[in-house]
């Protein structure tokens, strides 16, 4: 009817003609998205089958029940996880037995760090800071220092303090030493490169 309203004739067109004309139009009109629509349907269908293969619950074979069973199953799994988590936490807040473990723990890191220091010396790794200008407001920074707990966050704090924006960074640890290489972007002119270097080294050496 919509197409007909443009013309005067359809008013006189018989009902049957209108219907057949519409039918013809429908037949000639193929969705330009035919292929896309088909692919979309197949994609959804494939995924539903995959979903079903993962879900051990099967009540019906209809698409609707695939989704419903999946919902039930996910609920079950979430419950399981919740219960396991609770069990886990209960075990953590545990009885005095764990004190033994903790004392062991405290002992260990200290032992380790002194070992690491010696290792570093043995291998001849020396503390070092390098800071080179690589562009207008760009610098390249290299730091070698002794590895300690929390040293990287210290480094990041210093970076923030100095207003250094990290373009890229690479950190490696080996034999008690830590190596940090980074390209940084600065926003304020650096007054003195040497001073900054010393400052950096000092900070990295310091104990928190």
């Amino acid at each position, binding site marked *: 009817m919509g197409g007909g309203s443009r013309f005067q004739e359809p008013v006189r067109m018989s009902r049957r003609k209108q219907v057949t004309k519409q039918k013809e139009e429908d037949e000639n009109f193929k969705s330009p998205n035919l292929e896309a629509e088909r692919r979309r349907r197949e994609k959804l269908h494939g*995924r539903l089958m995959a979903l079903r293969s993962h879900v051990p619950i099967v009540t019906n074979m209809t698409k609707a029940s695939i989704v419903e069973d999946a*919902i039930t199953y996910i609920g079950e799994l979430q419950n399981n996880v919740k219960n396991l988590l609770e069990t886990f936490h209960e075990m953590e807040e545990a009885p005095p037995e764990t004190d033994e473990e903790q004392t062991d723990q405290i002992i260990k890191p200290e032992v380790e760090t002194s070992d690491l220091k010696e290792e570093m010396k043995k291998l001849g790794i020396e503390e070092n800071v390098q800071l080179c200008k690589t562009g207008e407001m760009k610098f390249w920074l290299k730091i070698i220092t002794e590895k300690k707990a929390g040293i990287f966050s210290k480094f990041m704090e210093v970076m923030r303090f100095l207003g250094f924006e990290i373009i890229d960074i690479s*950190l490696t640890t080996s034999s008690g030493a830590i190596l940090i290489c980074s390209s940084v972007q600065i926003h304020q002119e650096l007054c003195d490169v040497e001073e900054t270097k010393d400052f950096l080294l000092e900070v990295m050496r310091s104990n928190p």
Partner: protein
Amino acid sequence: MEEERESLYEEMGCFDPNTPAEVTVESSFSQAEQPPPPPQVLVAGSTSNSNCSVEVEELSEFHLSPQDCPQASSTPLQFHINPPPPPCDQFHNNLIHQMASHQQHSSWENGYQDFVNLGPNSATTPDLLSLLHLPRCSLPPNHHPSSMLPNSSISFSDIMSSSSAAAVMYDPLFHLNFPMQPRDQNQLRNGSCLLGVEDQIQMDANGGVNVMYFEGANNNNNNGGFENEILEFNNGVTRKGRGSRKSRTFPTERERRVHFNDRFFDLKNLIPNPTKNDRASIVGEAIDYIKELLRTIEEFKMLVEKKRCGRFRSKKRARVGEVGGEDQEEEEDTVNYKPQSEVDQSCFNKNNNNSLRCSWLKRKSKVTEVDVRIIDDEVTIKLVQKKKINCLLFTTKVLDQLQLDLHHVAGGQIGEHYSFLFNTKICEGSCVYASGIADTLMEVVEKQYMEAVPTNGY
């Protein structure tokens, strides 16, 4: 052949071996005017017998009148029975297994006998059902059976195992490609047959197995006419609706669709961080989420195990320590280590024999993505965030808090994002788990991002 059949009946135990029944059948069959079609018999249930050889002599009496089938070509009338066990694929094996019959071909023949025994005399519902089963599966003899199986035969076997025993009983018959018998058809076109149809459909719903064949039958143009018969048989009930089954009482198709769409919405709500709203993505993310949950469960199980072993170990040590006095702690420990060693060893071995603890999960949001992988005591974290804040700083703080020992870090600005990769180690005694790490990190980084003033975080 007779003795064989009878012994098979006994195995099945589902109906009485009735020699008279055979006679009945024969007599009804003998009224078929036309000579039997070319001696090829097909049992559709044999999933791989489309090319199998034929043995006709035993079965000559079972040929049905082709004129009852609208197709003169008598495709559905053709039966193949393959007495020697055919090369069976998994489906068939499951089927047979379910039937608990000892010989593969016996189940077909049994089913066949079942059918045969249905005469006008037989009135038991199960037999009716089995009869009604038959016309639904009309396969052309050339139709390759394996193509009808779904992609995952695993799920198929699940279905098989979950279907009720009664349902399973009918299955072998289902594959028999029988058209309607003239006599029985007349008889069955009453309320009783409708009942059978209803049950059949219900069984379809429950068993799930038959649906495939149902749909397979749908697609066969050869049997178009045949299917019309079925439609009539169903007394005008629409095929699409699979009979007048109302699941959850949907008076209209529209309501059914609405309900179906709501299901997708519910599924979406279960998923953490759903991204797109279209059905396919929801399903895809549901799959990933299920996998993730399974991994997390595995991880926790392992952690709990470890904890238990660890606790057991330390319990022993504590007891020993008390006895020995505290100043001598270390020595006592070493001295007394031996008697404990058995216990420790078993725990130790158990943990070692199990696979390494491993888990992996991902958390995604509009601006951040966190990927955490744990293998044994090493944690690899990948972080990607849209460039706005100094996320590296916050990340390192979180890592310190979680007692993760940094070994390597690499990353930087890539386009509009920051991307970093962290290789860390879990400190001994620390009990972190993948989802904990991921969630904490995600939370912190997201929060900082949201709260940041729209200038540089520097």
